[in-house]
């Protein structure tokens, strides 16, 4: 047993540019994208034929044939076939959770190195047959005589032939994530203009980061795409203001548009995590360390809390455990599922009543310095292939911290479907 824990190092990352749904990666499967992303990471760090401790990656939308998705991607990659792998799924928190899992094993001394990642496609999505038809087909497969087979087939009705599409909706409420976010936005009185401002800044920051070569060692082009397809470098508040609302349109003051909500996207990301020693032996950099992490969940069904508000609860727990104030960070990465989510999250932390009643705090966490937020762009501009977002953020923040110099600290906050949240602290 390891006598004490150590902090896992973020060595670097790789992702493919994120594509819009049914576009550049329409023909690429999750396995294709994850394999390409692993291979890009292998090329960047010279890991050909090497065995890393574990590869942990998940996908939110998964075909049943992809039951061993991550291991299959490893076998198709240039990594040693002796590299173990497993999958995880925590909705939009998948990628960050994977990084935490790898980092924790490294912290305990169970691993010296690992790769955490995630992949999602909304284009090559799994279609399923409806439950009625599925039952017919199962009994057909189990039928032994001709009579039994005919009887089973007789159960088929035309209406059963329509496949079930995966939906971006909460099973327990039937509401889409956008509708949920719109409820929260109304609750917190988040205005249209501030959402558009946040969205425009996301595009401008991401474009500037690309222009200065920030992503040269974080992104590897794929299938002809060299930058994120959703990125609009010339995005402005004025242009965004012209868009019609798409969520919460039942109410009088709908504010959420396609411009201040993340588009459906395809993509994959991976992060190389290791012990300091493992990195040093190979002459590899340590961009940052993963200091600590926390998850939380809220009862959005009956408890009166917003679907995407769980990170608001996770962060104070994380801060208290580490003796930190919300203002003790040099950079903040708050996943932009919707601009209104980021704004609601920050507003909640500033609200004395909410912090006292819901979070049980004596004083509100307070405001964060906005110029330190999502400085190299986030999901509104990059797109958000669900499970790939965590890896994008971890690698981006680790490099941002590394560039800023030693001793810098960053906070990651990712909201997830099912009323969950995953947050973490990185330090250079």
């Amino acid at each position, binding site marked *: 047993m390891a006598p004490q824990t150590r902090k896992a190092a973020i060595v670097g990352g790789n992702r493919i540019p994120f594509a819009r749904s049914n576009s550049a990666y329409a023909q690429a499967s999750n396995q294709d994208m994850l394999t390409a992303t692993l291979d*890009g990471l292998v090329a960047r760090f010279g890991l050909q034929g090497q065995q890393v401790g574990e590869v942990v990656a998940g996908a939110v939308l998964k075909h049943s044939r992809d039951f061993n998705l991550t291991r299959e991607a490893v076998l198709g990659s240039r990594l040693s076939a002796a590299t173990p792998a497993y999958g995880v799924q925590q909705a939009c928190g998948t990628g960050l959770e994977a990084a935490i899992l790898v980092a924790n094993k490294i912290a305990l001394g169970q691993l010296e190195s690992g790769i955490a990642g995630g992949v999602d496609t909304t284009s090559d999505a799994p279609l399923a047959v409806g439950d009625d038809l599925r039952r017919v087909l199962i009994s057909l497969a189990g039928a032994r005589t001709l009579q039994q087979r005919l009887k089973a087939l007789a159960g088929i009705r035309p209406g059963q032939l329509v496949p079930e599409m995966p939906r971006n909706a909460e099973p327990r409420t039937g509401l889409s994530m956008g509708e949920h976010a719109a409820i929260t936005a109304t609750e917190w009185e988040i205005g249209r203009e501030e959402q558009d401002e946040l969205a425009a800044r996301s595009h401008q920051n991401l474009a500037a980061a690309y222009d200065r*070569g920030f992503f040269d060692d974080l992104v590897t082009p794929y299938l002809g795409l060299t930058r994120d397809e959703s990125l609009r470098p010339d995005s402005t508040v004025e242009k965004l203001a012209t868009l019609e609302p798409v969520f919460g349109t039942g109410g009088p003051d709908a504010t959420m548009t396609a411009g201040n909500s993340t588009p459906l996207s395809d993509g994959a990301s991976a992060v190389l995590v290791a012990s300091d020693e493992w990195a040093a032996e190979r002459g590899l950099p340590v961009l940052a360390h993963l200091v600590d992490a926390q998850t939380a969940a809220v009862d959005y069904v009956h408890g009166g809390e917003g679907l995407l508000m769980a990170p608001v609860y996770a962060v104070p727990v994380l801060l208290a455990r580490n003796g930190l104030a919300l203002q003790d960070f040099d950079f903040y990465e708050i996943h932009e599922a919707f601009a209104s989510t980021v704004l609601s999250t920050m507003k909640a932390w500033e609200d004395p009543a909410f912090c006292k009643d819901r979070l049980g705090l004596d004083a509100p966490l307070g405001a964060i310095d906005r110029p330190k937020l999502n400085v190299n762009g986030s999901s509104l501009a990059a797109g958000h292939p669900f499970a790939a977002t965590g890896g994008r953020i971890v690698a981006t923040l680790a490099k941002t911290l590394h560039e800023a110099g030693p001793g810098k600290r960053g906070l990651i906050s990712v909201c997830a479907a099912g009323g969950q949240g995953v947050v973490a602290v990185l330090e250079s």
Partner: protein
Amino acid sequence: MSDWYRDFANSGVGHTITKQLGLPRPAVLRRYEPGAPLLDGPAVIGSAGESRLRDTLTAVLKDAGVPVLSPVVADGGTDGERLGAVLLDATGVTGPADLAAAHDFLAPAVKRLGASGRVLVLADPPSDADSPAQVAARQALEGLVRSIAKELRNGGTANLLLVPAGAEASVPGPVRFFLSGRSAYVDGQVARLTAADVPGDQDDERPLAGKVAVVTGAARGIGASIARVMARDGAHVVAVDVPAAGQSLADVANEIGGTAFQLDITAPDAAERLIAHLHERHGGVDVVVHNAGITRDKLLVNMDAARWNSVMAVNLQAQLDITSALLDAEGVLRPGARVIAVSSQSGIAGNRGQTNYAASKAGVIGMVRAWAPAFAERGATINAVAPGFIVTEMTATMPFGTREIGSRINSLQQGGLPVDVAETIAWLAQPSAAGVNGQVVRVCGQSFLGA
């Protein structure tokens, strides 16, 4: 990208037809394979005058296991096996009269030369001579060698090595290169050696073992080939290309066990970032190959500033900036470092529609010549390689006629392959090439352009 005509000319019926019609009959060149012998047949060594390199040459051949036969006389028997190489040590030539000995030795020997045979002449540089007669005789050898190169058929090449007094230790590496299949498409060239501290313990199967080599423009074409050959020769290759080419760059890096480094070499901080990367990941660098290049062809009168500037920025300014920064960076360019810049036949001969490209590639030649003394001072070298017509994806899109003519107007009557350029560059990176500095080696099959 097969050479259909070469394959036809080497087929049974094609052989007959091309021979009877007097058509060009390009040979299938002998190219280097790891483990291949230095030569396919024995060698003969002759001299003209009181020469001084005979023992060196004999030792090179003996070490490589090549049998050395006695020179044959003009009317001697020719029933013996075909020669792999004919070496003439002409370092003793003092005047035109001594050249008769060269003729006496070469004529019967070259007649016995086998397929992809080598003629290699070693002489003193004309510029170092004592008298006009000596200069004339030494210069005459250049005309002799270049003409032999044009007369040779069946893949044979002829080259001239100029060896100044004191540079004898620099001879073995270049001799091995010019005899081997690595120099398949290097023909009719003159290379001048200099005195240098040549390490004696090179593993010829893996001459770059333990070296870190940067190759720019490595995602495809000639650059990818350079990366492959360098990795084959033992180097860890840092494959560099623009971020947009990252997918194929990663494929190349993964294929050869190297690393991919996406970088726009024209970015203002490109040199700084490259040096930081090399320092952090590898503690320094041994070999830098400036291969990245672009073309933006237009006749001069129609050429806009964007075409001119982008070609200059990638092909010349980036090479200058990165090399300069490497020289300035403390301890990054390791002792014995090698910089090899890719120039072009266009930079020597000029090319219609390529004023920008030719200017940049001629500039590269000026650059390596100017920097050679500074590199020599630190035990390093800087050289240029100038490819001729090399068969790539780019030439595959040329119109048929242009491509066929372009590929045939050289002494080997065929286009070279990316690997031919790569082999020459990898040779210049070898420790045993320490005595080759400030040179421009053309890989052009003795092209008629700019010859």
